[in-house]
């Protein structure tokens, strides 16, 4: 039993290290593109070597064998026996994906699927068989390519070629096929291995198969290996997978469309079938696996990108790696705390009035120790945002190839630290923003040249601290948001009255409305109008907010402001009547006492407060929460100017009390979510105070206003 447990522990470490190694391989492989550096190749080789060794030890022979061939290729590169070709790099990057997939299957104790590995092994063997002179990085395909732009170096030519193959867009299919000397497209072999939760997402595999059969003659083979015993069978789960061969020369997009609604956890592998490949699984012509492997990565990017991320965030939540210095600092602090405690203990034994001064000193020291200890413990949960940024070089690399754009990715502030929970939850929204920037923001090289910009677009990811928050910026120098188009679309959809005057900020905020998209064509990268609303909701859930700055023709910046931690909040304590509430300092712009001249009323109901150049609606917290206030006269109380989701309001309270850091406690754990409240905290005297959810409060207020108007009409 304990041996088993120990083994589990060791396995866990193996997987953690393997995934780390794979991440290293991936990031280093991407830097190799700029020029072969011996030390970098060495690092990649070492990572591959440890994965191979570990996998062998634990009996994951599939991983070990596959990694071995990767290692062989890397070894030749390391020895200088082989140059670093873009072709080989692409295969190596795909190998990293395949190894990661295999390791994830092994970690989840699922059988390891060898489809990807088999296809890539063929490719690796092909590359290994080529005896390439080390310096001249020539590949046969590059030499054969006439499509290379004049003046481009051979390296670039082969990169272009690889891009053309990997894009796998329908119109290029034939070209790609011809280049690799196979016949025309005859059909598709599809391996469809849905996630067990397929039925829960309201998918019926029969319908999917029927849909495919409509496209052409379809051969279906069901794989029942994963079926559990009848006694263990859960009928709500899908244990089947299918191998489908569709004998119809349809475009990839048509086939992929059928699987559109299948969720990202399902595995779908598309392999084109070419005439010359004769469909014989035995000894396929060498070029076929290339196509297969390449097509795999060029499949619907939603599936490819989302799946590893989902697995990652799921796996990450368990343990935390902490730098030794942080632990050392903690031990020091605890040491000091013990000393202070013993000082204080002395007073309980023998206390003389003369000791009052030293007692006071000891208590001051205790206070300091406690605060420092709290800070250090919080520090443990803090991780550099680099962990989240690390995935972007690969994402941008793959996506820019797919979209045929040239992009330079600049990362800065990777060492900015933030809470682990925030870090994990910000990953997906960031991926979405980056994909949006690449797809919609940055223009194609031709458009950029036409607009007088450099061919290569820049995408910047930047993180820094500001006050008690962390700011993350996603900045591109692309086309910028087109206000006129957004506004036109919003009017068309009835989101905005045709005569309404909106500020730039209000217009930009429209893109966060669910289902909003100005994209003329829906691509499989983005454009369905799903997502920006989710991005904003995720960020709001973390207590942050999003702002958009954009200059048409020059690019856009999306700025995310997040609290450093979810556990502690810098709060302003407010009093209304006999009740105490806490508002996050981040959402407070300022607090003012209003004079009567600054107040006006619209339609006898909506009260407005003139704040600088703006008119802000007055939110009476006592009305909203049903409290008996000290005074209902606005000029008697204080107006707290709050901002959330790009909207400002002035909230009327009776008094401002202290500013303090509060520990956020969940209201939902034992109770339920309450509109306008983000949680609760405990005061020094043991009573509970509620924390305001400013965005929610503003929403509730607006809903009430609209309800009033509805009633009046």
């Amino acid at each position, binding site marked *: 039993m304990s041996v088993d447990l120990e083994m589990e522990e060791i396995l866990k470490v193996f997987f953690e290290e393997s995934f780390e190694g794979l991440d290293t391989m991936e990031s280093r492989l991407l830097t190799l593109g700029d020029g072969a550096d011996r030390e970098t190749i060495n690092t990649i080789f070492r990572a591959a070597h440890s994965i191979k060794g570990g996998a062998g030890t634990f009996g994951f022979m599939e991983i070990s064998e596959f990694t071995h061939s990767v290692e062989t290729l890397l070894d030749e590169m390391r020895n200088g026996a082989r140059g670093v070709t873009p072709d080989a790099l692409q295969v190596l990057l795909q190998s990293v994906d395949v190894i990661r997939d295999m390791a994830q299957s092994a970690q989840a104790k699922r059988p390891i699927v060898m489809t990807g590995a088999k296809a890539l092994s063929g490719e690796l063997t092909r590359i290994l068989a080529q005896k390439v002179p080390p310096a001249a990085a020539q590949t046969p395909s590059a030499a054969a390519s006439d499509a290379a732009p004049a003046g481009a170096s051979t390296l670039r030519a082969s990169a272009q070629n690889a891009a053309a193959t990997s894009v796998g867009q329908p119109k290029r299919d034939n070209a790609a096929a011809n280049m690799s000397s196979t016949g025309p497209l005859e059909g598709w072999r599809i391996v469809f291995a849905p996630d067990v939760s397929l039925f829960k997402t309201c998918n019926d595999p029969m319908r999917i198969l029927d849909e495919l059969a409509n496209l052409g003659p379809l051969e279906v083979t069901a794989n029942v290996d994963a079926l559990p015993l009848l006694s263990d069978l859960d009928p709500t789960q899908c244990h089947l997978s299918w191998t489908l061969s569709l004998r119809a020369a349809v475009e990839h997009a048509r086939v992929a469309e059928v699987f559109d609604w299948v969720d990202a956890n399902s595995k779908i592998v598309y392999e084109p079938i070419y005439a010359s490949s004769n469909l014989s699984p035995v000894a396929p012509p060498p070029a076929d696996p290339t196509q297969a492997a390449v097509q795999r990565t060029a499949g619907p990017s939603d599936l490819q990108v989302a799946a590893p991320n989902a697995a990652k965030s799921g796996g990450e939540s368990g343990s935390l790696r902490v730098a030794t210095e942080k632990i050392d600092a903690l031990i020091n602090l605890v040491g000091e705390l013990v000393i202070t405690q013993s000082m204080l203990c002395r007073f309980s034994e023998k206390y003389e009035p003369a000791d009052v001064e030293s007692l006071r000193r000891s208590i001051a020291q205790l206070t300091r120790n406690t605060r420092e200890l709290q800070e250090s413990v919080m520090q443990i949960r803090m991780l550099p945002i680099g962990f989240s940024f690390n995935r972007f070089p690969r994402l941008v690399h793959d996506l820019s190839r797919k979209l045929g754009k040239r992009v330079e990715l600049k990362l800065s502030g990777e060492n900015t630290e933030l809470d682990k929970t925030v870090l994990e939850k910000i990953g997906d929204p960031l991926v979405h923003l980056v994909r949006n920037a690449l797809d919609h923001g940055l223009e194609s090289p031709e458009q950029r040249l036409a607009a007088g910009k450099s061919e290569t677009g820049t995408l910047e990811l930047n993180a820094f601290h500001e006050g008690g928050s962390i700011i993350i910026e996603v900045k591109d120098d692309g086309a910028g948001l087109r206000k006129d188009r957004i506004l036109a679309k919003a009017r068309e959809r009835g989101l905005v009255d045709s005569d309404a005057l909106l500020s730039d900020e209000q217009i930009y905020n429209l893109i966060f409305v669910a289902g909003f998209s100005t994209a003329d064509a829906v691509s499989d990268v983005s454009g369905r109008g799903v997502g920006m609303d989710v991005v904003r909701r995720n960020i709001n859930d973390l207590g942050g907010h999003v702002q958009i700055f954009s200059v048409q023709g020059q690019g856009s910046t999306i700025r995310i402001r997040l609290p450093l931690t979810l556990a502690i909040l810098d709060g302003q304590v407010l009093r209304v009547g006999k*009740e105490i509430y806490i508002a996050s300092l981040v959402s407070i712009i300022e607090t003012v006492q209003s004079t009567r001249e600054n107040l006006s009323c619209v339609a006898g109901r909506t009260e407005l407060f003139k704040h600088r150049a703006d008119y802000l609606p007055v939110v009476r917290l006592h009305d909203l929460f049903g409290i008996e206030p000290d005074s209902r006269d606005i000029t008697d109380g204080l107006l707290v100017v709050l901002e959330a989701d790009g909207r400002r309001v002035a909230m009327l309270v009776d008094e401002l009390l202290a500013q303090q850091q509060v520990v956020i406690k969940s209201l939902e*754990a034992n109770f339920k979510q309450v509109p306008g409240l983000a949680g*609760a905290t405990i005061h020094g005297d043991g*009573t*509970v105070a509620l924390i305001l959810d400013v965005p929610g409060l503003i929403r509730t207020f607006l809903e009430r206003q609209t309800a009033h108007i509805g009633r009046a009409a």
Partner: protein
Amino acid sequence: MTTERMSGATQGAGAVHQYLSFFLGGEEYGADILSVQEIKGWDTITRVPYSPDYILGVINLRGSIVPVVDLRVRFALANAAFDAATVIIVVHVAGTRGERVVGIVVDAVSDVYSVASESIRPPPDIMGSVDHMFVTGLADLDGKLLIILDIERLVESSVLGDGKAAA
């Protein structure tokens, strides 16, 4: 307060459950003792906006935020006064969204009874002010009536109840 005794009705075979009894408007109610975590004296309660009137608010129970339901208000009993005997019974129930800790305010805590399950009679359809869906059964304890409450269901429906209905 916790003198234990077997009532006359519990002589037969079968499972015997213990119930904590408490008073609400002069009637004696019972709650499965396994769901009772502790009994707490009166404490400062922080009101929560948008809650029905029977949710008095939340209290701090050793660092967790716990809602408090006034059962007297929940059952629309006339006199919901607060005196020295008024206590909060802290119960934990396995709700639809996992374990939940909730305080319930009652007039007074009375006793712990052991009641055999076969001596519990199903409630009649008409139960006056207490919705019969919250009543597991009625037990006759030597001529005294104990109304056994389905605490889990009661707490779940009270805590998750729609706040708008009361507003």
